[in-house]
């Protein structure tokens, strides 16, 4: 059982890290603000979510697990808002000449 | 493992609670002024400052009677875990000086910083009185704290109180001066803090008395001494780190300039004394003392020469501060020299501190005098001072007395200070400092003379004053200047207050 949980952690965190990596590459390589945002929000939220899911079986108490999930939700909320604000500014400024 | 020296743990002494009251009173004043607001700020200040004067007098009396350092263990915790407040002779003298000067400044500024009728709260008066209390609180913390980190916080307080005093008047140049002052102050305190960090890393305590017994000549201690000294010099405006001072001090309102020039720079200077004489006397080499005094000598010469070339009275007085700060640093090689000769270093230490007190009183009087001249004439151009002697006789007399105190004519405090320093220089064979002091004195007398002569010229034409200054404001300035002029009589006192609680001469010094 514990080996199964270990395997789950390795897989989930590994996948999360992959999404982080992909998001970072996207941030650096994509041509304009909107596509970069796309890379960031999609990949980061998924990445963080997978990391949290992977760590969940390893926490000591249900409270600690709840805290982890709260962290994920708060980050989702904050990054959604921030990207929306950035996107609005980018749209108002128009596409780069 | 934690090799603290085998000394008896300190305990709270009789009168120790006075230190707590002296430390907290100004802060309570700041809080009260902020909460009550408006014209209450001035009332709070006028109430708290005399009370503080009484407290500091009580501390001096207690120290003289018991002939030992007053100590208070905060929270009942002894160092190294806890923090103590200590008041030795040096602290007691500085506390008293601060209270006296603040009282004079408060009386002088009473009319200037009045909330206009019909307003509940006006920025300038409200902030002036609050900041005056704030400055006082930070100085008291500097003089009383026995812990290097508490002193760091106190230094920051000093900067936060001083910077806004500089730009009380909304002008671009005062804001610029304030910004530069702040940057220097921040750089100074961060370097000081870095030194304290290294000392804790090496010795595991921040308490001054414990460190004194632990510090050994090794890299951490040398680095700490260098960093802390440079940081404090930037805050004290010792040449060549002095450039922020003249515009900052000259641009402030007269009462604020008086506080800044007389007291604010003395806070960091006081810490240099603490550091060099109390925390790490064993590792300060004679060459370091000579170097510090060389900067002091350069400050004396450059400051005085530049002062001579100023066209505005307030700038002249501000540059004179640069020079007078230089004198303060002559005490270090002399004290080290005396210690090296197995002689008590009292003359140098007392001389240095007396110079600080003498300059504080004289300079506060001179800045306030310049403020009255500005108010009367509507300008402070030195070339156009004619007629001031007739309009403001007491102020001019005060200026002359303060000037003679700076020059060092007997019986001024400056005379006694320079006498002690000169004799220490001759005893230790360091004649070059004698030359510096004599040349500096000549230059100082030149610009004091020029100002007084210009002001004594009478004009027949109808030179109507912009504003008639009430006599009592002149009287305050004259009283402070006279105090400075008569300070030399301190030599007649039965005890040398400064020496109370100082380590025995032979324990310190070189091996």
């Amino acid at each position, binding site marked *: 059982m514990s080996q199964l949980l270990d395997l789950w952690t390795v897989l989930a965190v590994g996948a999360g890290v992959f999404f982080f990596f992909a998001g970072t590459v996207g941030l650096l390589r994509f041509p304009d603000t909107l596509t970069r945002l796309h890379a960031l929000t999609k990949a980061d939220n998924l990445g963080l979510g997978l990391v949290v899911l992977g760590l969940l079986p390893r926490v000591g108490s249900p409270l600690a697990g709840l805290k982890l999930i709260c962290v994920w939700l*708060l980050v989702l*909320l*904050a990054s959604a*808002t921030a990207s*929306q*604000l950035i996107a609005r500014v980018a749209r108002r400024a128009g596409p780069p000449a | *493992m*934690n090799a603290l020296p085998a000394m008896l743990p300190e305990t*709270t002494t009789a009168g120790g*609670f006075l230190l*707590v009251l002296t430390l907290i009173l100004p*802060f309570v004043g*700041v*809080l009260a002024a*902020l*909460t009550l607001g408006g014209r209450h700020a001035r009332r709070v200040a006028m109430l708290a400052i005399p009370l503080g004067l009484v407290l500091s007098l009580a501390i001096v009396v207690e120290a003289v009677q018991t002939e030992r350092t007053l100590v*208070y*263990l*905060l*929270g*009942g*915790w002894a160092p*190294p*875990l*806890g*923090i103590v407040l200590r008041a030795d002779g040096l602290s007691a003298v500085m506390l008293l000086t601060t209270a006296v000067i603040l009282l004079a400044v408060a009386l002088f500024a009473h009319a200037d910083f009045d909330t206009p009728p019909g307003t*509940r*709260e*006006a*920025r*300038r008066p409200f*902030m002036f009185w*609050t900041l005056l209390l*704030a400055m006082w*609180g*930070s100085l008291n*913390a500097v003089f009383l704290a026995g*812990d290097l*980190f*508490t002193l760091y*916080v*106190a230094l*920051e*307080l000093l900067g*936060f*109180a001083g*910077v806004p005093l500089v*730009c*009380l008047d*909304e002008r671009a140049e005062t804001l610029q001066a304030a910004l530069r002052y702040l940057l220097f102050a921040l750089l100074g305190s961060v370097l000081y803090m*870095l030194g304290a960090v*290294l000392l804790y*890393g*090496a*010795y*595991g*305590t921040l308490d001054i008395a414990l460190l004194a017994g632990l510090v050994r000549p090794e*890299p*951490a201690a040398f*680095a700490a001494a260098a960093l802390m000294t440079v940081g404090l010099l930037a805050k004290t405006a010792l040449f060549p780190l002095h450039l922020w001072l003249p515009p900052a001090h000259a641009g402030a309102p007269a009462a604020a300039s008086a506080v800044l020039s007389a007291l604010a720079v003395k806070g960091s200077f006081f810490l240099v004394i603490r550091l060099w004489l109390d925390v790490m006397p064993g590792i300060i080499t004679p060459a370091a003392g000579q170097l510090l005094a060389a900067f002091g000598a350069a400050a004396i010469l450059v400051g005085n020469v530049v002062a001579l070339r100023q066209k505005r009275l307030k700038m002249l007085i501000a540059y004179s501060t640069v020079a007078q700060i230089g004198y303060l640093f002559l005490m270090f090689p002399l004290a080290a020299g005396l210690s090296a000769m197995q002689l008590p270093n009292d003359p140098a230490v007392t001389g240095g501190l007396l110079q600080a007190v003498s300059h504080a009183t004289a300079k506060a009087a001179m800045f306030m005098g310049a403020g009255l001249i500005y108010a009367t004439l509507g300008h402070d151009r030195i070339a156009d001072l004619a007629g001031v002697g007739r309009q403001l006789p007491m102020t001019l007399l005060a200026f002359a007395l303060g000037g003679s105190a700076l020059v060092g004519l007997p019986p001024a405090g400056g005379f006694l200070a320079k006498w002690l320093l000169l004799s220490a220089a001759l005893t230790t064979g360091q004649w070059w400092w004698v030359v510096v002091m004599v040349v500096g004195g000549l230059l100082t007398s030149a610009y004091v003379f020029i100002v007084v002569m210009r002001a004594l010229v009478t004009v027949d034409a109808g030179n109507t004053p912009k504003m008639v200054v009430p006599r009592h404001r002149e009287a305050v300035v004259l009283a402070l200047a006279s105090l400075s002029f008569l300070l030399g009589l301190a030599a007649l006192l039965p005890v040398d207050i400064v020496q109370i609680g100082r380590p025995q001469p032979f324990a310190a010094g070189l091996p």
Partner: protein
Amino acid sequence: MNLALLFDGMLVVLILAVAVWTVTVRDSFAAGIGYAVYGLLLALAWVRLAAVDAALTEAAIGGGLTSVLMIRATVRLRAGEAAARAATPGPLPRLLAALLGGSVAAGLALVVLALPDPAPTLAPQVAEHIATTGLGNAVTAVLLSFRAIDTLLEAVVLIYALIAVWTLTPDRFWGGRPGPKYETDPNGMLAYLARLLPPIGIVVAVYVLWVGADLPGGKFQAGTLLAAMWLLAIMAGLTEAPPISRRWLRGVLVAGTVVFLAIGFAGVPLAGAFLAYPEGFAKPLIVAIEAASMLSIAFTLALLVLGPPERRDQA
């Protein structure tokens, strides 16, 4: 162990790289962003140094509030940016500055390498006396019992800084409201966030304050959180910064220090010294001080970020 060292090595390289970028990048706005990243990385370093309290403070204040302050300022200074860049010193001053910085860094590195082993520490003394405070968090015990005067003076520092900032108010705006009036879409995303987040933030802040007695946390971290929530509501246009002349505001600003002083002086007759706590009552008194200070700290920090009043108080 080696894996840990590898991780730490990468972290150090990253921190230094971001720091270099922050100093050298041409655009000040970018430097502000860089500093935010730097603050967060530094918070990681604090975790690696087993100083979680410091990590929380660094993340909240260094990474959070300082960056907000900086980024807001760079936006306002945009206009003068090009002119300022032209004043960049030439190669020789830069070389001298590099020599200065380099030699200080080298000297410090030598001192770090020469620090005594075993290191002197006060941890045993703290462990010996912490029982008298009833606290589980040694850092809180140091801040509020052994070295309470530092914490008291620090509260005064915050008040001094706010007084200093307010001194910069233009005379015509004295008593007015700090910061610009934020107009945002009341149905927009930011307003939505500003309605949703503060209740959560307040709960978290109270939690951080409460556990601070025994676990990492305390009034600074909690106060910063509250300040952030308030700033969010202000910047989303949901509420306005209060006029600085308000009595209640002044009262809240000094409340923490007043409570601290009152309990400190009560210690003189009850516990034998200023800032001492009567036996058995240390923990509740400390929590009381922390709770009052949290509010004062929150308001002071937020007002420090907002700066001096910039407009009259229209009722």
